C-alpha cells in the first residue's frame, strides 16, 4: 500500500534520448525524442514545454502513455507533465543540448613552410 502511494507521488516520466550533442558544423540539434509515462496515475495527461513547437499537448484519454516529438533546438528543453483536469504538475524531464567539444589545439613549434 505504501509502495503504491509512493508510485503515485513519483510517476515514471521518461525521455529518450535525454542528451543531444550538436555537431561542430551544425549549431542546432535535430532529433526525434519520445516522452513516456506509466499508467498508474490513471489521469489524462498534458505536456507543456518551453520548446517553440510544443507549447502544450494534451492526450485524449488516460490510455495514452507516450508522445513522440521532432525537435530542432540549440538549447535545453524542459518538458512538464500536468494533470489535464486539475493542471497539477506531476513530473518533469529535461532534454540537454550539448555542443560538441571544440578540437583541442596546442602550439606548433615549427613554421609549416620553414624550408630547413
Amino acid at each position: 500500500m505504501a509502495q503504491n502511494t509512493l508510485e503515485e507521488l513519483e510517476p515514471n516520466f521518461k525521455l529518450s534520448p535525454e542528451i543531444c550533442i550538436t555537431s561542430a558544423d551544425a549549431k542546432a540539434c535535430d532529433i526525434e525524442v519520445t516522452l513516456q509515462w506509466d499508467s498508474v496515475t490513471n489521469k489524462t495527461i498534458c505536456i507543456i514545454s518551453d520548446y517553440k513547437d510544443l507549447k502544450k499537448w494534451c492526450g485524449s484519454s488516460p490510455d495514452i502513455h507516450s508522445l513522440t516529438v521532432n525537435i530542432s533546438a540549440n538549447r535545453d528543453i524542459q518538458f512538464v507533465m500536468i494533470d489535464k483536469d486539475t493542471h497539477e504538475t506531476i513530473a518533469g524531464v529535461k532534454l540537454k543540448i550539448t555542443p560538441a567539444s571544440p578540437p583541442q589545439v596546442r602550439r606548433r613549434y615549427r613554421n609549416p613552410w620553414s624550408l630547413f
Partner: protein
Amino acid sequence: MPYLLALLLSLSLFSGATFADAPASCDNNTDCIEVGRWDLGIALGYGQKSNPLKDFEDIPLYVVPTIAYYGESWFFDNGNLGYTLAEGENYTVNLITTFSNDSAFFHRWDPSNIFLLNTGNSQAAIAPMASSLSRLTPDERTIGELENRNFTYLGGAEAFIYTRFGIVHASLAHDILDVHGGLESKLKWFYNIPLDKWNFEFAAVLDWKSEEVVDYYYGIRPSESLYWNQVYQAESALNKSLEFTGQYVLTENWNLLFVARYTDIGDAIAESPLLDKDYTTTYFVSAAYRF
C-alpha cells in the same frame, strides 16, 4: 663557450614578458595545430637554394611538403621528433631530434632537399669536385674525389620564450648517430605580423656548429688532399641568417607563400677550400595547399 652564455643571458632577459594562449581554433594559423590530427600540405612553385660549395650547382625548389602530427606531449613536425617536457603561458621546453642541414649541400636527397626536384642535370648537387679538377695537371693543391659527408640526426633540448617582442627559440643538440660526434646550437628570434589576410614572419638566427661538425663537413681528408688537410684546420663556426616568410590566405585551404633566407656563413667554414662563397641564399614563391 661565450655563445652559450649569450644564449642564456638572452633567455633570462625575455623571460618576464607575456604571450597570449593558443587560440581555440587554428584555421590558417601557423603557430597552432589541432591535437591528434595529421596536418598535411604541399607547396608548388619555384625557388632556389644556392650552394656555397665550389663546383656544386644550386638546388632548385619546386615542391615542398609539410607533414606534422602533434599528440598531447609527443610531436612530429617535418622530420623533427619531439617531446614537450614543460609548457607554460610564456615558455616551452622540449626534448627534440633534428637533423643537420650541412649535409644537404653534398647530397641531392638529403632531407633538407627532399622533394626539391632537379632541372635536367641529375648530378647538380653531387657533382664531385674531382670531375672538374681531374683534367688539370696533378697539383698538391688539387682536391681529389670527396669522401662521403653523411646525413645525421641530432638529439637535444630546445626552449621557446614567448614575449610581446616576438618568440625566442634556443636549442642545443648533439649528434646521436655518431657520424661526427659534434654539437650544434641555435638561437632564433622571430616575430609574426598578421595583417588582414597576410601573415609576415621575420626571423634572425644564430647557428653555432662545433669544431667536429665543421671538420666533418668542410674539413679536407688526407685522401682528398694532403696539402689542404694540413693547411685548413676546422674550428667551431657561427652562421648568421635572416629569414622572411610571407603568407596570403586565398581560401580556407590555399595560401600564397613567399620565403626568403640569407645566411652569412661563419668564417671558419667559409675559409674551407671546399667553398667559394661565404653566404647562401634561398627563395621560394609558391601556392600552398593545406589538406
